[in-house]
């Protein structure tokens, strides 16, 4: 069971993400959009959306640091485990609560504003469930462990279980044992994360991959010559249909 969950599943998700993105880019570039609903409602969106997105950006940076940087490195830099732990927990809690507050507001807006709700697809609903579950398990776990430790208890350190496993995935030698030794909440959150990643290419979340960083470096006005052959411009030509 552990082998399937932590040795096989990550690679299935990886293939889904990479393959899904390539597939979507080739066949559904027109559908690759944020599908913004700001035109319908902007009062709640103006609070909820930045709250969610900026919170999420901090959360992502936190995950990258926590999962990719080994504890030996931070110790070598002179950061004590306690200092690291306290700062990670506090920053993570603040960002996590912002993200949760943001998504709560956004989901409530989506349900209560008529036009926004009518523009919500089943695909969106599934995505919202997984996204909210991933946030809730992550934040709930953080709150629970922080509470245990404030009460003087001791919890397992994810930097000795989850992080080594995560890094081992990328060198194609998954450390199943490390992850199997992690506390149950970590496992739950990791599974939710994997589910979210598997959904990324197939939902509106795909807009995250088109973050317009290039905008900072290009001239304001863009000129383009007329495409003489639209299908030749790096796009897959739609198969010619039969005439009968």
């Amino acid at each position, binding site marked *: 069971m552990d082998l399937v969950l932590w040795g096989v599943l990550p690679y299935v998700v990886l293939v889904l993400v990479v393959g899904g993105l390539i597939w979507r880019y080739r066949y559904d570039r*027109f559908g690759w959009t944020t599908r913004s609903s700001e035109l319908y409602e902007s009062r709640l969106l103006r609070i909820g959306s930045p709250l969610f997105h900026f919170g999420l950006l901090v959360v992502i940076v936190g995950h990258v640091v926590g999962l990719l940087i080994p504890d030996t490195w931070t110790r070598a830099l002179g950061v004590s485990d306690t200092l690291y732990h306290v700062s990670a927990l506090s920053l993570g809690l603040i960002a996590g609560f912002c993200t949760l507050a943001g998504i709560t507001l956004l989901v409530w807006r989506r349900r209560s504003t008529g036009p926004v709700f009518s523009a919500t697809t089943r695909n969106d609903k599934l995505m919202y469930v997984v996204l909210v579950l991933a946030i809730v398990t992550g934040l709930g776990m953080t709150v629970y462990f922080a509470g245990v430790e404030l009460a003087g208890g001791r919890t397992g350190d994810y930097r000795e279980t989850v992080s080594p496993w995560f890094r081992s995935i990328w060198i194609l030698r998954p450390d199943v044992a490390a992850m199997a030794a992690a506390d149950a909440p970590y496992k739950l959150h990791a599974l939710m994360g994997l589910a979210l990643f598997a959904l990324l290419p197939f939902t509106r979340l795909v807009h995250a991959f088109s973050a317009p960083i290039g905008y*900072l470096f290009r001239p304001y006005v863009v000129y383009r010559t007329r495409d003489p052959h639209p299908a030749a411009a790096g796009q897959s030509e739609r198969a010619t249909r039969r005439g009968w």
Partner: protein
Amino acid sequence: MADGERHRSPRATASENPGETGRRPIGRVMAQVAMVMNLDKCIGCHTCSVTCKQAWTNRSGVEYAWFNNVETRPGQGYPRTYQDQDRWKGGWVRRPNGRLVPRAGGRIKRLATIFANPVMPSIQDYYEPWTYDYDTLINAPLGDDFPVATPHSALTGEPMKVEWSANWDDDLGGGPELASQDPIVRRLGDQVKLSFEDTFMFYLPRICEHCLNPTCVAACPSGALYKRAEDGIVLVDQDRCRGWRMCVTGCPYKKIYFNHKTGKAEKCTFCYPRVEVGMPTICSETCVGRLRYLGVVLYDADRVGEAAAVEDEKDLYEAQLGVFLDPNDPAVRSAARRDGIPDRWVESAARSPVFALARRFRVALPLHPEYRTMPMVWYIPPLSPVVDTLTRTGHDAEETGNLFGAIDALRIPVEYLAELFTAGDTAPVDLVLRRLAAMRSYMRRINLGQERDESIATAVGMTGTEIEDMYRLLALAKYDERYVVPTAYGVDEADRGVIEEVGCSLDFEGGPGMGGMGEVPFGEASGRPDEASVETFHALRDRQTSERASATGGRINLLNWDGNGRPDGLFPPREDEGTDNGRGQRPGPT
């Protein structure tokens, strides 16, 4: 000689001809397909809006989008009060150091506000689109009450009360309460009388301005919006648009619409599939008053930036005129050839009615030059408010003295027009109105068999011949004089032989074509629509006019088949042949 000049002044070396000081070498020559509208002729019939909607936006998601709309002035416009840039932050601002920055903020601010655009109009600023419950009319049971079709929101499907639309204040409907919200009226203050006895009124048809310095393009984080290098048409690449909505804010004319079904920006295309084959846009084609003119304008692309950044807003009109190049100038012709503009485009530019009205006769003015976008749809301001007042007060409205006096006396319409067309500078508007007035008087004398009065022309800085030329263009010009549109280059000569028919022209997304929508995995917003292309047009014409079966490959639509030959892919393979269509594609799984 040149050496002697060089060490005297570095500036003189920049000039190719030392004799003409102040004249710079011509920079990169570019061509722009532009439009002029003669507002005196607009009767506000909305035919242009309706045919444009039929052609481009009769789909769900863009019910509220009017690539072409006609506004009554004074009035709020569409969307409501879009001209109030303090509120909507469209266009450019000039920083004290002379640099232009989009009014809503530069690159970093754009990206920082990408999660919720703070100054985007909501659907309520346009109007909530609706349809009617026609079903009730057909299926209502027999009863005492006559069945009615109640309005239902196209967004939610719920019953709604219709309270606003694209031209709710048409013909000053709604009276002073609505018209007083006009941003220009508010700026001019109490001078504008909106009582029905004293007011003036005219119509302003608007499309995308296809600016030389477009803020919408500058605001697009994805780089999906672009200006076409060949003809200057500003388009949205639907495959690259990611729906960040910054263009809606960037455009000061609010002519970019967000398709709320596909989540992508859409805008006036200047009917490029028509323009590419030399046809006028659909709004021009169907204009009842024949008030639109289309033509090519050559301009110096290297000077656009500095012209858009001149310090005084009132100099922007002259600065933009200065960017235009005279296609009759041999230096311009050779520079155009150097920059790859075909001679037939330069010839076309020489016959361009747009160039004639804007530069030769100077009667066409840009709409809101103070937005610094260098708009390319220009307007001949209407003399009719002045003429109407004269006629109403019992004066002869075709006598020069009366008209000139009235232009001076009726300051309000002139100031209002100046706010629209020259950033508040009344002198250019004054000159245009005087020229139009002079034309009326001059031509009346001819019609009445009196001798030509050259002094009328001289009074407005023209010659009698020029006035007659202008009269011909404004009053008599036929179809091919009003619409001087060369076909797209790089297609019909050089590319002959590689053109290929793309498919049935009705085969667009959601269209009635034979292919339907095809496989679209994510609902109606996904999938790639077939392009309408000039290649299709040429391939079709080729087949329809050739004697034999044409050699173009690919699928041939039964509707377009002229009976010549037996094109591949039109019929199922014969059993004895066992061949497939030309592509070697296997028959489908079913």
